[in-house]
């Protein structure tokens, strides 16, 4: 067996299950833009099949095609044969990393990311010195680059790095008068270093529900960006570190305010350790007590509704891919919105269609992710909502970029921020 073939041998049966009906073409956001068969799951799985049949190898072209996926899982949800195409494409990436190595830029970034202390320092520095290179835009938490930077489209609107990260603003444990439970908050990088306003809202809302919060200081990136790039070995290091850190935290529950971060704890960690029974059991144990914030507030806490003040706004909801098709949480954020006095929820067309961000996908493929996002912005505009609510920092950033690029005066917030506003209004 050739070396390339051997790297994919264990998914041969799974690949054979694709009957090539092409139903994935209907829902793939990338295929919709590119209209090229290599962009859609059927094509990517055919490329893996070709390697398995010895008709092709893990070439640079193979690597490139596997990377051309936002991992939105729409194909998997659509597949009549139950083929988990998103996972198989990820396996294709893992094989490409093993056969060809990681892209040099990613290698460099992941090396930094793997070193928690250095990574923390770098992003703090970015917060302090960011204004030198990024120009603030009025209104939204938004900046654009002052001068060209490698790997960044200059038109792109990003969010500024926070001058002080979230976890540095709070003590390790945030107490309340009569705690009914203790929650460990997994902030994730975006909330800790960029969208601290979301983190603050999570803390305020938990406090309003008499929940003690701990912010384990040693917590680190969930590893999803590394995992999605196909570096499973490195992803396992992140997973192990976080599992150990949160076991030590000794909380009743673990809460994250991002679909992808929650998915890492709930689904990816156990999967990463499927061949290691001890770690797998530890991962499963944590997974069982991990919740995305809206899921937690609705299903576990039954959040307080008697002291909610009015938040007058028309809101439309964007479901992040990893919320809708990853951890399958779409009802709970809506229940929160509907509970807030003054909020009028207007659904957009296809609320769970990918916004085009796809984590680092949008960095490498800005033009394409802009096109996907423009469709989302058009759907948002059609509702005429003043506020877009979502549950993912990466989606929020990309939607804010899209709103600015399309000259739309609307704000984009995390659902929990609206709830925090309602509690604040209720106090007044």
């Amino acid at each position: 067996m050739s070396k390339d073939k051997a790297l994919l041998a264990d998914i041969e049966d799974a690949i054979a299950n694709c009957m090539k009906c092409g139903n994935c073409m209907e829902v793939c956001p990338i295929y919709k833009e590119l209209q090229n068969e290599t962009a859609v799951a059927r094509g990517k799985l055919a490329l893996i099949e070709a390697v398995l049949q010895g008709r092709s190898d893990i070439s640079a072209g193979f690597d490139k095609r596997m990377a051309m996926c936002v991992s939105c899982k729409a194909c998997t949800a659509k597949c009549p044969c139950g083929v988990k195409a998103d996972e198989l494409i990820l396996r294709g990436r893992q094989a490409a990393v093993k056969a060809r190595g990681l892209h040099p830029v990613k290698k460099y970034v992941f090396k930094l990311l793997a070193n928690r202390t250095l990574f923390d320092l770098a992003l703090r520095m970015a917060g302090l010195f960011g204004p030198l290179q990024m120009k603030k835009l009025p209104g939204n938490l938004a900046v654009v680059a002052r001068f060209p930077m490698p790997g960044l489209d200059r038109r792109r609107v990003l969010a500024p790095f926070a001058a002080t990260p979230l976890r540095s603003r709070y003590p390790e444990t945030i107490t309340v008068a009569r705690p009914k439970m203790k929650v460990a908050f997994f902030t994730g990088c975006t909330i800790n270093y960029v969208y601290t306003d979301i983190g603050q809202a999570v803390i305020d809302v938990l406090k309003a529900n008499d929940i003690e919060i701990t912010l384990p200081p040693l917590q680190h990136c969930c590893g999803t960006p590394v995992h999605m790039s196909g570096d499973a070995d490195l992803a396992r290091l992140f997973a192990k570190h976080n599992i150990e850190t949160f076991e030590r935290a000794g909380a009743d529950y673990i809460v994250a305010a991002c679909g992808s971060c929650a998915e890492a704890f709930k689904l990816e960690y156990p999967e990463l350790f499927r061949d290691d029974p001890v770690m797998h059991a530890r991962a499963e144990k944590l997974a069982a007590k991990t919740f995305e914030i809206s899921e937690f507030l609705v299903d576990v806490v039954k959040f307080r509704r008697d002291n909610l003040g009015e938040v007058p706004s028309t809101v439309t909801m964007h479901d992040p891919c990893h919320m809708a098709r990853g951890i399958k949480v779409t009802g709970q954020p809506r229940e929160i919105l509907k509970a807030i006095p003054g909020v009028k929820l207007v659904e957009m067309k296809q609320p769970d269609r990918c916004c085009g961000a796809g984590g680092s996908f949008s960095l490498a493929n800005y033009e394409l992710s802009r096109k996907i996002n423009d469709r989302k912005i058009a759907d948002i505009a059609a509702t005429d909502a003043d506020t877009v609510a979502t549950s993912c920092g990466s989606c929020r950033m990309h939607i804010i970029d899209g709103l600015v690029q399309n000259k739309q005066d609307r704000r984009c917030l995390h659902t929990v921020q609206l709830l925090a506003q309602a509690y604040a209004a209720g106090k007044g």
Partner: protein
Amino acid sequence: MQSQLIDAFKKIVGPDHVLTSKEELLCYSYDATPGFANLPDLVVAPANTQEVSRVMTLANSEGIPVYPRGSGTNLSGGTVPMKGGIVLLMTRLGSIVNIDAANLVATAEPGVIVADLNKAVEEYGLIYPPDPGTVATATLGGTVSENAGGLRGLKYGVSKHYVMGLEVVLADGTILNTGGKNVKDVAGYDLTKLFTGSEGTLGVITKIIVKLVPAPEARKAMMAVFSDLDNAGRAIAAIIANKIIPATLEILDNATIRTVEEYAKVGLPTAAEAVLLIEVDGIPEVVEKEAGKVFEVLNANGADEIRLAKDAAERDKIWAARRAALPALAKLRPTTFVEDATVPRSEVPAMIRAVNEAAAKYNVTIGTFGHAGDGNLHPTIVCDLRDAEEMERVYKAMDEIFATAIKLGGTLSGEHGIGIGKLKYMEDQFGAAGMQAMRAIKKALDPKCILNPGKLVGEC
């Protein structure tokens, strides 16, 4: 292919629209038909009729095979580039040219997705009835070329009943117009019908004028369970004999019922020999009356149980069983062949029995479901293409199924086309004279045999 030639094609359609990388060629080497794949030399994606014409002129003068392709969802191997050459990707010709509500026609380019056409005409209260299972992905050009049908075939027919006119580029690049918007048009040979369903072997369709019909105001669905297959057969015949043409009259055989129930738990009785799913549509008063009559007929013909959908939710539940048929069967094994052998509707029970006998004789798994009302069945064979011994049995079972269909006065294909998958049975249905006539047409329009060569009529 020589690089000069590739450059010449790039000059016609633009360099971005000629695909030559190994990965891209691999991705255009197949369609939705199991067992057929071959690498093209290049993929060319023209943007308009003129570009198609220039591509054809060059390909014809060089004798390069050309395989027109839409979304590649066909089930007959119709778009697989068996001899290499060019895959002519038509998806860039993707606009709806106009919707003429006064004349109830729409003009569209071949790359338009069928469901998108239906969405566009919906606001005029109209529908384009052909609705194959792939409406959300298949192109109009592809469905017209394959003469696709769908669930509503019994009342509404297949693609050829809706195509009124075409713009076609012939093998040598000549641009030809056929038909038009006239409801009555008997002038000359019916070239529109000739190109419709010609599977890309006679010309490349670049524009399509289709007939639209008013959307039905009301629908009523019901489900009937039969412990005896013959009673189901008699019920099908009796419904039609009572002069009711349901929009949809579907059957699931026992193997399909069991598989669907296991997979989707929609409450089907697993011991039943057949389940009929029926929908009548039209003007509300007529629908009510017809639904009542169908109910009586089912009762009179030994239905063990009849469920009538009282609202949209119940209607959805009934159709969920039908929608689950293919996915449920497909999940059983890696490879899925969906065949479309069709017989006169009175022969449906005999056909289902013959399929079951073939399945038992060759020890292969076949579930049969399909459009009982028009006799168009889908014996669905699930297997594993990687198992040569099993495949030998599968192909033998297929031979027997198609032989039976022809023997019962049926046809090889109700709606999927011939392509390459069913080519070997063509002479059994048409005889030497029929094949010769078809090959003569092929040679007259495509003397060098460059258009989808080797398909439908075979080598010429």
